[in-house]
């Protein structure tokens, strides 16, 4: 499953950062997940429990901030949040495929000790 490999990579980055700080435990991970990232938050949560077992992040809390899609219309030079899957500019009705936000799969912060 996709989310397991995403989560293992997240844990790898988190562990590396925590250890650099001399920490031996991770209590909380915060992530930003774009609506258009192709990642399912529920599946990430499930994968998190699986991959953290027996690691320094076991029992930690996973917090996910869902990032809505933001598009850019090059004609009107405006940014807009599309209300549906069709990214239509609210000013000129042209379809846009310039996605500025909404694809993120990021680790943003940790709580460690």
């Amino acid at each position, binding site marked *: 499953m996709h989310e397991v490999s995403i989560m293992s990579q997240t844990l790898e980055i988190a562990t590396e950062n925590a250890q650099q700080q001399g920490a031996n435990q991770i209590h909380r991970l915060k992530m930003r997940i774009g609506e258009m990232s192709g990642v399912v938050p529920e599946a990430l949560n499930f994968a998190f429990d699986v991959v953290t077992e027996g690691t320094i992040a076991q029992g930690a809390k996973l917090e996910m901030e869902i990032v809505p899609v933001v598009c850019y219309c090059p004609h009107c030079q405006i940014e807009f949040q599309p209300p549906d*899957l069709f990214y239509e500019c609210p000013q000129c009705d042209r379809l846009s495929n310039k996605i500025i936000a909404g694809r*993120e799969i990021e680790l943003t912060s940790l709580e460690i000790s």
Partner: protein
Amino acid sequence: MCGNCGCSELGDLPIHTHHQPEHSKNEKIRSLTITQSILSKNDRLAERNRNYFLAKGLLVLNILSSPGSGKTALIERTITERTTEMAEDASAIASSLQDRLKVGVVVGDLETDNDAKRLRSTGASAIQITTGGVCHLEAEMVLQASQNLNLDLIDLLIIENVGNLVCPAAYDLGESLRVVLLSVTEGEDKPLKYPTMFKSADVIIVNKIDIAEAVEFDREQALTNIQKIAPEATIFEVSARTGVGMEAWYDYLEEKMHKGFSHKGFSTEDASRSQTDIA
């Protein structure tokens, strides 16, 4: 007893969740800002692939679809028809030129190497990546596999990704073009169900049009959905079985290849350099 701080919490409690900042002086919880993209490593490797392939003058296709949409069939037909035709063209231009258009294929599959066998029977060199359960290809896998092909003898590198419309969308392989297939048996609303994948496509190919009528495929609806989800993608309607519609796809490839070839012309120095970098 907790090995960390000597407390005696045991039982069903997950290890360490009982720790509070005041629990021990040595265990002050502090927060650490990171902000790192999880796929940044793959993105970096993909960019390296892209420069490497470009330096070798290769056009690289990443072909994606659900299992059974016809990726292997499309590649087979493209290789057999296109290589023959290009060879005829070439011999018309210079009779001493014996070379055919050389195609290399990298095929990702969860378990078997059946597709690679099918593709080798067309005469192309095909390398199988058996992912062992991983549901997508990653940039590093593609680079490793491509080292088993003689890239200097190849003009077109085709990557058949694992049959899956979800996570391969997030993994850049360093391709020149991302090609997403949709067969008429899968329904007109497929692009709406997998918008991330379809939005990332440079090319969308509607396959199996030979049986469109039999499965009551609503062509207008499908094309409308594709155009609304992926307004800038180039669309082809083909049958990899009968060959209908493939001509337009070949013309498109040829046009893209010529752009690729022009890179080859002035970047031989870069090519040898990046080869030593990677070796």
